[in-house]
């Protein structure tokens, strides 16, 4: 049976009716149409479904929607402001840290939560920070460069 949960997504309050077995990924994508959060495996291997929950990056495919009750979620759709793209998004654009772009939202959110905690990460720290996000296209180097350029 569906239950109503309340949560904050990208600074907006939501009330959503969810099935007890629905994942946070599916809730975001199907119930709210926030398809910037991607699905690559649904078993926690790839990080394409990464969102930030109460300041911590999580694989949203491993979180039940119910568990997000009362939490604060940031998805890729929440990064842009009236001032434009988030500096990490801009860096990804300028450094060419994108190919197919399917891993990109997850990469950006993992990078953001790293930079929020550690504004000047070393290359090793950046690599460790995004090591839960797989990318089959780019070879990571430009992603690391992009994050580094924001860190400075």
């Amino acid at each position, binding site marked *: 049976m569906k239950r109503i949960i309340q949560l904050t997504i990208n600074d907006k309050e939501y009330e959503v009716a969810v*099935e007890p*077995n*629905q994942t946070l990924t*599916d809730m975001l*994508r*199907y119930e709210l*149409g*926030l*398809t*910037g*959060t*991607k*699905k*690559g*495996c*649904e*078993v926690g*291997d*790839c990080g394409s479904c990464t969102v930030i929950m109460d300041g911590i990056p999580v694989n949203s495919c491993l979180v039940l929607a119910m568990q997000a009750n009362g939490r604060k979620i940031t*998805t*890729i*759709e929440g*990064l*842009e402001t009236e001032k*434009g*793209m988030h500096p990490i*998004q*801009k860096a*990804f*654009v*300028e*450094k*060419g*840290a*994108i*190919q*197919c*772009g*399917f*891993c*990109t*939202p997850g990469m*950006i959110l993992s990078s953001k939560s790293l930079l929020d905690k550690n504004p000047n990460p070393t290359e090793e720290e950046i*690599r*460790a920070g*995004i*090591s*839960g*996000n*797989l*990318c*089959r*296209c*780019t*070879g*990571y*180097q*430009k*992603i*690391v460069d992009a994050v580094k350029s924001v860190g400075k």
Partner: protein
Amino acid sequence: MSKKEIYAVKGLSVPETPASAQEPKPWKQTQMVGKGIPRVDAYERVSGTAVYPSDVLLPDMIYGAVLRCPHPHAQVKKVDVEAASKMPGVRAVITGDTPEARVEWTYSKEARSSLFDPHCRFEGEPVAAVAAETPYQAEDALRAIRVEYDVLPFVVDERDALKENAPSVHGAGNVLKTEKYERGQVDRGFREADVVLEENYRTECQLHTPMELHGCVAKWDGDRLTLWESTQGVYAVQAEVAEVLKLPLSKVRVVGHYMGGGFGSKLKAGKYTVIAALLAKKSARPVKLFLTREETYLAVGNRPPNNMRLKAGVKKDGTLTALDFSCTGTGGAYPSGGTSLVDWLVRDLYKCPNVRTECTDIAIHTGPARPFRAPGHPQGAWVLEQMMDALAEAIKMDPVELRLKNIPNFSQGKEGNPPYSSTGLKQCLEEGAKAFQWKVARSKALAPGETGRIKRGVGMASCLWVVGGGWPPSTVILKLFPDGSLNLNMGASDIGTGTKTVMALVAAEELGIPLGKIEIEHADTGTTQYATPSGGSKTVPTEAPTVRAAAISVKQQLLEMASKELKLDAASLVFQEGSIAPAKDPSKSVKITDLSELKKRGVVVGIGYRGPNPENKAIIPFAAQFCEVEVNTKTGEVKILRFVSTNDSGRVMDRLTYDSQVIGGITMGIGLAMTEYRVLDRDQTGRMLNRNWHDYKLPTALDVPLEMTSLPVDREDSQANSVGAKGLGEPVTIPTAPAIANAVYNATGIRITETPISPERLCRLLAEKRKEG
């Protein structure tokens, strides 16, 4: 930088306009092409607003799922869907007994099958499918389907498949075909050699695993079908679906737009495409059907495993005298190129008069292969490039030197031995060695007295890719509006390589229009022009000259309009920054946006067609890669420290996307060399054991070197086509694995002839070597 600043380009002048029927000259100087300009669709990709096929949400849409055979070989006796059909939310169930689903399916020309073939020849063959209101309900319904199987004996390793009494895949023996090639006199060649070496090699089966899953959304409007499919080629999907469902092409619209990677596994439709269409028809609802990650490991292709042997002869001065290569391989249960192009580098990369190859493709009970980035080449390179390294050592020559000695200027492997339109192999080797500081690095690694447990080594390898010139057909339409903005309409998919960006740059270059004013329609059979699938490193050399031709047509029409307006001969007019003026009197210019005929007509439509390639020329990209590794001789761990890749792919069209391709290609090659391989339960169950990214390991950000350098040999190939570019996507991944193996050899003296270079394997070989002393 704001978006506006990135995209605004001021004061563009445009290249000369050829008269109609005249070939355009190569660009002298470029303003847009070849720079590092960010992707035109970068914003969409970083903001989450790009809609991939798996993101498509339609009102009333329901979800499909496929039940797959859990055995490598079985006969379906009975499928009972009664319980499943009554489950909550279920709207359609189809099986091989459903009349509409009794359609033919061709895995390959040689082997016809059906959509739900009761004779399942691999684990993962579809047996039934459902559509339900939610993905969870669809999943539940699958579990309620009861299937009775006759489980049959299987063979899932091609090395077992030729044994006597091996279970047969298609009724007779398991050899699908043997292909032979020979030139010169191989035996005499070996007699002329000073050194002859012989070695066996093997590469394991690699899986594509693009980040976006395979699948589509299917929707019917009356008898018209629309598919949003994650694909490299919308027209290929259209043709296949129309044929299977016996529909006119015009009734099948395939929309691609964004897609999350394919690497060859999404060149065609899948059974899932047709199943989605059938479920949508039956339920009268749009159906989204995307495979699970697990299913993609079984049923949507792979790079075949290959067992290879090479015997090679060389003279003391480095002249190759003979190459004798043989291999077996398997494309799985249906003929799908288990050995295709594996011998190509042996035939074509180095000068050698006497060459013999023999390739035997074998059937086994596993999912059919699909082309995987540079089919056959990384496997062949694994053999040839390690052998070149060994030959160089045997004749005491530097491996780079040995390769430089054997550079051909024509294709020895192709019919009629056509000359290369350009060959930058020499530059790749020389410039790469220089940038890598090959000599210094090698002498350091070779220096005696390294007694520590960590050993350093360097290695290199080179390659070519069999086709890099693109080819017809392709049509591109450009529409220039009276306000000076442009619409670029092409059928090609941008699979992540930057196709849209490169094409926009070509249009901008030729027409002097800033990128911000160019909009692209692409990858839609309903609204865009015919194109072959994006793959095989052919998209840029196919589409870019087509865009240029369309742009030139637009310019010619504008000159005609201006000629009427200025009452001057069109041939006397030239473009200058958004205006047209007499060449002799620039002050009498008319702004393009002021042309009255343009305003009246509302648009100028320029159509470009891809012309033929030059006759009797081989248009081939080349590359060389250099790497340095650190081997822990106690644990067998290999750390890759740095890579330098030099590529001759003709003109660099966009530096940012170019470098990204190179680094991504190296990374995929690192996967093949180090961690990626399919594990099958060869004896007990025949099932795949590592069908997820946890057990099948892709390189992560921590597994690739901190330093990867892309160094283009940026020389336009003016014979190849009007933009001077050759393909890039495949050569970037071909030499990687053997370069690493050569570096490991350099560090340890151990020749690793089988992938992956895992710590277990290396440890075992190190221990054996210590025992031998």
